[in-house]
């Protein structure tokens, strides 16, 4: 603990913290939207669902189950060719954001689906009984009724994304994880490592607290 370069690394630390924040913010927004669409698709095509369709449900399930279990560090390598096509580069933060967005979408789709199935089918029937269209029911009943758990689900996804950004360094991406590995772990500088760890813990705590508060407000309990 005696030899540390932390005092000289503060500018780099703040850059890394900022990188983590914006990588996670962008991927949570894009991946969150994609995941919401996928999750809604999984939910409404289930048996007895609003748009029940076995073939569509099967395809979506296979798709999600195919990509979701791939460990993220391998996923990054696997989608690198697509990253070059879509964002123009296979390395750095743009490539990480691309890979992370995809991985997040598949993960979040399951979170969304799990929360939507908890919506009481009775309220959906009530909405149908007054002549609401299926699209309206999704918009005005299913999503609002599941909003509390969805907020908690997205908070969970945020924490998972912070975790996943840690391996961004393998393709030259930045962030607190990379900072800890590069300047802490590899330089045997425990102070640097722990500074990054504490920053991540604080970030996660703040977001979790905000998510819990929002969910409690929505659920009124």
């Amino acid at each position, binding site marked *: 603990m005696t030899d540390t370069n932390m005092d000289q690394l503060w500018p780099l630390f703040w850059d890394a913290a900022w990188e983590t924040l914006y990588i996670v913010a962008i991927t949570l927004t894009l991946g969150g939207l994609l995941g919401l669409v996928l999750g809604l698709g999984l939910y409404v095509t289930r048996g007895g669902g609003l748009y029940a369709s076995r073939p569509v449900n099967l395809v979506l399930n296979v798709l999600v189950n195919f990509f979701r279990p791939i460990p993220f560090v391998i996923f990054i390598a696997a989608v690198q060719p697509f990253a070059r096509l879509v964002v123009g580069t296979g390395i750095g933060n743009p490539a990480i954001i691309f890979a992370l967005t995809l991985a997040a979408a598949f993960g979040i789709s399951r979170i969304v689906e799990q929360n939507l199935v908890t919506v*009481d089918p009775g*309220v959906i029937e009530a*909405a149908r*009984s*007054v*002549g*609401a*269209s299926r699209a309206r029911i999704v918009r005005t009943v299913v999503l*609002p009724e599941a*909003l509390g758990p969805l907020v908690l689900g997205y908070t969970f996804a945020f924490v998972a994304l912070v975790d996943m950004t840690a391996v961004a360094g393998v393709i030259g991406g930045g962030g607190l994880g990379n900072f800890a590995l590069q300047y802490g772990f590899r330089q045997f500088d425990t102070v640097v490592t722990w500074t990054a760890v504490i920053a991540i813990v604080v970030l996660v705590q703040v977001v979790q607290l905000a998510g819990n508060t929002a969910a409690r407000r929505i659920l009124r309990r």
Partner: protein
Amino acid sequence: MPLVELTDVHKTFPAARGRTPVEAIRGVDLAVEAGEIVGIVGYSGAGKSTLVRLINALETTTSGSVRVGGREITGLKERELREVRLGIGMVFQQFNLFRSRTVWGNIAYPLEVARVPKAEQNQRISDLLHFVGLADKAHSHVEELSGGQKQRVGIARALATNPQLLLADESTSALDPETTQEVLALLRRVNSELGITIVVITHEMDVVRSLAHRVVVMEAGRIVEEGPVVRVLSDPQQPVTRRFVATIVDDEPDAEALAALHARHAGRFVKLAFRGDDVRQSDVFALLLEHGVRFELVFGGIEEVQGETFGNLTLSLDGDPAAVDAALDAVRALVPAKELPR
């Protein structure tokens, strides 16, 4: 023209994996006249819930015809069905209120679907809240309400778009007896003050007795008996109907009760069936006394249903055997009498 008319309706649910298809409705003919309250009774699985869901097209028929307000609704497109549903209110056992909305928001929902202008919506919601007696709860959230209040919101929501027909699916089954009476009174007002036709599904004969004009008994996907409530309660024909009626009207003691009564009373047991007001009990009792027969009421009761009186009284008759026989002959001229042998 009936408001609702079902002709030879069948509904079969396709087989779930590894199961046989379920024939929920097997050839039902039913007509509901405008302005009446029809009670549909039956045990769970009899097809009652499916039947009402065919009326507002939440389920589609397998075959047969469903007409609502003279319009054939089988084969309509989804968009046309949504219009039909707007004109039919539905109330649910578990209320099915939107937890994400306030009381006001729940009642507003059908009006939003119907694209009613905002000002008109506000007036309508306010009127409905007063009608169901919840004006002070307008901005409460659903979980702050009692069961009875939730159902009143459910009824207000179902009435929002001024439907001609209200379907009530076990609307009081989740409520305690007192709250049940409150909700039934509200449904009666919906019918009498607003002129709305009501089809109520229930397994509680009390609900039928205090609310319905006409009762339809279902068993295994078919209608097995129907008629005016007083007729069905006083003179049930089918075994399933008798079982339902027995839950609220004493008929005659069952074997166990009979044995216990016989152990306490030495006389001959006779069940008298009083129907309507044309035969007075006092006349019957006077006849028995004229013949020197002493009697005791051991079982039964008198029912008052929608202004008509009926009842089944089991008497224990004591006296000279010849006198009892003569008295029974005389009584039989007035009311049906059935001897319950020892």
